[in-house]
């Protein structure tokens, strides 16, 4: 096979329309006569609804309808628990519109459909809801105590799930350890904050009985399945399209948000297209978030720093509901030993309800928390044993010869045992040490200190189980008129560049340029088998499905060309959009010609088609034009289902300068060594990593969703929630290692989430290293804000 496209820095195929402002984000799609939605949302974290008065709103002339739970009929249901798990014995999910109780600030209570958003917002102000506020507990540790106020009346201690897993003999390891390191770490809540908020629009065609839904979702096929099921429609009568989606980062994979059900419902009821465009405040209070976990972790080690065992017990904040099951906590718990050869592990977690917006995966999905816990612990172990941070890691990294490395007894988020497939962890650490120039840095650090400046080296290693199943598929067809290759797959894209990397994969098999491949995704009318875009899985799962389908089409092309050119298949070359006989470039047929000839025709609608009509010499057959078992055209469908997750990894380091007076940080350098297997397009891989690092920097130093004691979010806007601008994000130096995954034909692993995972650790360890001469206390909590640095330096807060 030619490898011209795979691995090449192909420029993106989606850019031309996006840089012109010609994208099709949901609110850009013209929908004649569309009505607009606004929601009445709970102003209380926990309250009983005593009454709702919609009379005044209903009387407004520009209001089409007002809905409360009483107006939803069969839609007044508990929405689905998407990922059930045996440990999840107290699952609670949300209703589209609250009935009886509200469980977080921002929960939808009533929906207005009006002429435009402006009047819809006028109308929600006329709706009078009488609430009886109830007691709340926002603190995660206090929430699990006996007698704590409950989010759900019948869930004791607010514990939704309690899960324990272990591998090896942890008790034995702790019994024979020379040294035990204990640490308690916390990562706080953040949010994906995609720049396009969520959006959904729907149109119901009463005549054909077809429902069309435009949904800025990462999971159009799954949304369709759910909608059809809940609305009682045949799946073929529901088309879900995710056109251009302005970032997702996990927030757009949850189904259902109430609006995703209610907007199609209203469109069906009202006979007019209906549109809901979430605003920024609603995105903060109504769309899911992630991160808060508190880990208490212990390492059992020898005096040489070899880790024999690990125990970790953590609390995971799941918000008011748990529709996505225990996925995040499960990923955290199974990633807890990171890249280290720890044979004995015991890990438990409790998923805890708090009266806050629901928690579902946000880029990283439990991995940043697990990485922060193990990496802070490894630093502490090194400190306590007087070892160098690089050295303590080197002594424990899984060695090249240990792969595949299993952690029997730890079940990953795909329901399969953790098994790291491949890697060169030691090499990655050595590359980092060399690239950063440790000796040079030590000298620089000394010089800076002499000048009263504080430089520190931050270091963090991460692993990431990527490319989760169950499966994805692809349908490929070579278009008879243009010879263009159409690739349909079931995912949706939120900016990752699927259209480019998938085109590269198909192009290699079919001997065309990537620009001749048209990737269609995010539309159930184009392809409707598959799951969603999440878990750094698109390149792995869809990528390999496309590779397999393209290989089948390649065979068809060669078979057909062999007939047309009257040459043996082995003598044919497929290149530059045509097949020719090796050494005889004139004996050639273009893909368009081959595709046309592969479809027996009656009507010659163009020049090429003449060759395929019944009386053309090349089409003469003794029997039927299509033999038994043959199909017209050049097309194939195939699927890829991974045996288990493919484990990517990397190490990040930074040189950070800290101003101990302002407690501010400045990145002097930021370096990433990573390995995501074979790279389809290094430019796009780097783009994913740089974007991940920027989000990681946000979570490490700036971004935290703040609640007051009554559960009101205090910074639910971009003024107060500090997302980094270009002035805060460092320039990243990126070094690649490519260890192929043995699990899939392309040898690839995912990279979507990687960048953000270790940044909290990099910042905390860098600040600790910088301020060590000032006797800084432990830094075991991110985001590490200036306040926290001040406190760790012994400063006292002024109230």
């Amino acid at each position, binding site marked *: 096979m030619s490898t011209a496209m795979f691995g090449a820095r192909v*420029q*993106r195929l*989606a*850019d*031309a329309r*996006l*840089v*012109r*402002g010609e*994208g099709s984000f949901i*609110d*850009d799609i*013209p929908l004649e006569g569309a009505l607009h939605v606004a929601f009445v949302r709970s102003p209380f974290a926990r309250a009983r609804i005593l009454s709702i008065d919609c009379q005044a709103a209903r009387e407004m*002339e*520009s*209001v*089409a309808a007002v809905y409360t739970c009483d107006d939803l009929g069969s839609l007044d249901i508990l929405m689905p628990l998407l990922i059930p798990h045996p440990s999840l014995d107290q699952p609670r999910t949300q209703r589209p519109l609250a009935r009886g109780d509200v469980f977080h600030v921002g929960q939808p209570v009533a929906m207005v459909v009006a*002429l*435009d958003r*402006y*009047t819809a917002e006028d109308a929600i102000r006329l709706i009078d809801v009488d609430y009886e506020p109830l007691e709340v507990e926002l603190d995660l540790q206090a929430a699990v105590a006996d007698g704590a106020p409950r989010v759900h009346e019948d869930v004791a201690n607010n514990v939704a799930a309690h899960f324990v897993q272990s591998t090896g003999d942890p008790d034995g390891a702790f019994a024979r350890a020379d040294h035990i390191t204990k640490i308690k770490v916390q990562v706080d809540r953040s949010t*994906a*904050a*995609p*720049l*396009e908020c969520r959006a959904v629009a729907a149109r119901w065609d009463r005549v054909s009985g077809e429902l069309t839904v435009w949904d800025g979702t990462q999971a159009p096929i799954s949304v369709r399945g759910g909608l059809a099921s809940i609305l009682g429609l045949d799946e073929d009568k529901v088309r879900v399209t995710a056109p*251009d*989606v*302005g*970032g997702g980062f996990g927030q757009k994979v949850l189904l259902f948000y109430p609006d995703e059900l209610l907007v199609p419902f209203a469109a*069906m*009821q*009202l*006979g*007019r297209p209906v549109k809901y465009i979430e*605003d*920024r405040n609603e995105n903060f209070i109504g769309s899911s978030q992630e991160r808060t976990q508190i880990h208490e972790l212990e390492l059992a080690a020898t005096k040489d720093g070899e880790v024999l065992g690990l125990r970790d017990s953590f609390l995971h904040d799941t918000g008011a509901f748990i529709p996505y099951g225990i996925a995040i906590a499960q990923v955290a718990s199974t990633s807890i030993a990171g890249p280290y050869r720890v044979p004995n592990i015991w890990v438990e977690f409790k998923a805890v309800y708090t009266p806050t917006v629901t928690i579902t995966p946000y880029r990283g999905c439990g991995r940043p928390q697990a990485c922060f816990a193990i990496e802070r612990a490894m630093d502490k172990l090194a400190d306590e044993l007087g070892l160098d941070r690089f050295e303590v890691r080197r002594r424990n990294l899984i060695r090249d010869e240990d792969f595949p490395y299993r952690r029997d007894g730890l079940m990953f988020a795909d329901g399969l045992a953790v098994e790291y497939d491949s890697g060169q962890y030691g090499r990655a650490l050595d590359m980092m040490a060399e690239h950063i120039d440790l000796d040079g840095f030590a000298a620089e650090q000394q010089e800076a200190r002499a000048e009263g400046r504080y430089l520190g080296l931050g270091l963090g290693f991460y692993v990431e189980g990527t490319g989760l199943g169950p499966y994805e598929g692809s349908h490929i067809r070579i278009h008879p008129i243009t010879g263009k290759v159409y690739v349909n797959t079931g995912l949706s894209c*939120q*900016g*990752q*560049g699927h259209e480019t990397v998938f085109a590269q994969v198909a192009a290699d098999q079919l001997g065309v340029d990537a620009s001749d491949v048209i990737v269609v995704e995010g539309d159930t009318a184009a392809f409707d088998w598959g799951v969603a875009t999440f878990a750094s899985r698109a390149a792995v799962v869809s990528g390999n499905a496309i590779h397999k389908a393209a290989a089948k089409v390649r065979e068809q092309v060669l078979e057909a060309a062999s007939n047309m050119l009257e040459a043996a298949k082995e003598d044919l070359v497929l290149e530059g959009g045509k097949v020719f006989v090796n050494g005889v470039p004139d004996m050639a047929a273009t893909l368009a010609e081959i595709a046309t000839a592969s479809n027996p025709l009656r009507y010659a609608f163009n020049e090429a088609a003449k060759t395929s009509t019944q009386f053309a010499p090349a089409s003469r057959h003794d029997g039927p034009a299509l033999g038994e078992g043959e199909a017209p055209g050049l097309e194939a469908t195939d699927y890829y289902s991974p045996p288990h997750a493919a484990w990517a990894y990397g190490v990040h380091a930074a040189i950070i300068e800290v101003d101990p007076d302002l407690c501010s940080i400045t990145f002097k350098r930021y370096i990433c060594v990573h390995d995501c297997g074979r790279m389809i397009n290094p*430019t796009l891989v*780097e*783009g994913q*990593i*740089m*974007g991940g690092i*920027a*989000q990681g920097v946000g979570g490490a130093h700036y971004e935290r969703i703040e609640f007051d004691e009554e559960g009101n979010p205090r910074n639910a*806007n*971009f*003024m107060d929630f500090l*997302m980094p*601008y*270009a*002035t805060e*994000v460092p*320039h*990243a130096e990126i070094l690649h290692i490519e260890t192929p995954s043995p699990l899939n034909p392309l040898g690839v692993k995912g990279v979507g989430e990687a*960048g953000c995972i270790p940044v909290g650790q990099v910042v905390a360890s860098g600040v600790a290293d910088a301020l060590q001469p000032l006797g800084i206390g432990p830094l075991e909590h991110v985001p590490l804000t200036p306040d926290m640095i001040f406190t760790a330096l012994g400063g006292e807060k002024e109230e």
Partner: protein
Amino acid sequence: MTRRVRQEMARSSADPTRQVSLTVNGEAVTREVSTRLLLSDFLRHELGLTGTHVGCEHGVCGCCTVTLDGAAMRSCLAFAVQVEGADIRTIEGVAGAGDVLHPVQQAFHECHALQCGFCTPGFIMSIVTYFEENKDPDLSDDGIRAALSGNLCRCTGYQNIVKAVRRAHELMKA
């Protein structure tokens, strides 16, 4: 399911309206608009110029950046009726004649300076204006990053946008 459109529903909002005349991307436009209609919504929904995106509606993210009489501004922070007589340029008015991308657009493509593309029009408008206002722009990393500091991007980590600014400068010189 039964259709339940209320018979008495209004066909247009009861908002007071006012006529506004302005120039958008070189074309004269006159419309009767609600006095509370945001300029961003006016451009998007009245004129169909949907390249101006709305990311926060409180003037922080910069997705809705357009130029008003040559200066960059957030179109979500103005009402349509406030820009009477103004000359507005949006992302749709940036590319050259025919199919030629503006150097900033071209540089964004070449440098992989966009991923989802939602913030991109706002960045491009800010950068185009930056070059127009600074004939001798500061192309150091710090200088470029300061110039970009009015726009949020959640996908790229900004590094390739910084690169694209330099590349655009090269293309404009050429």
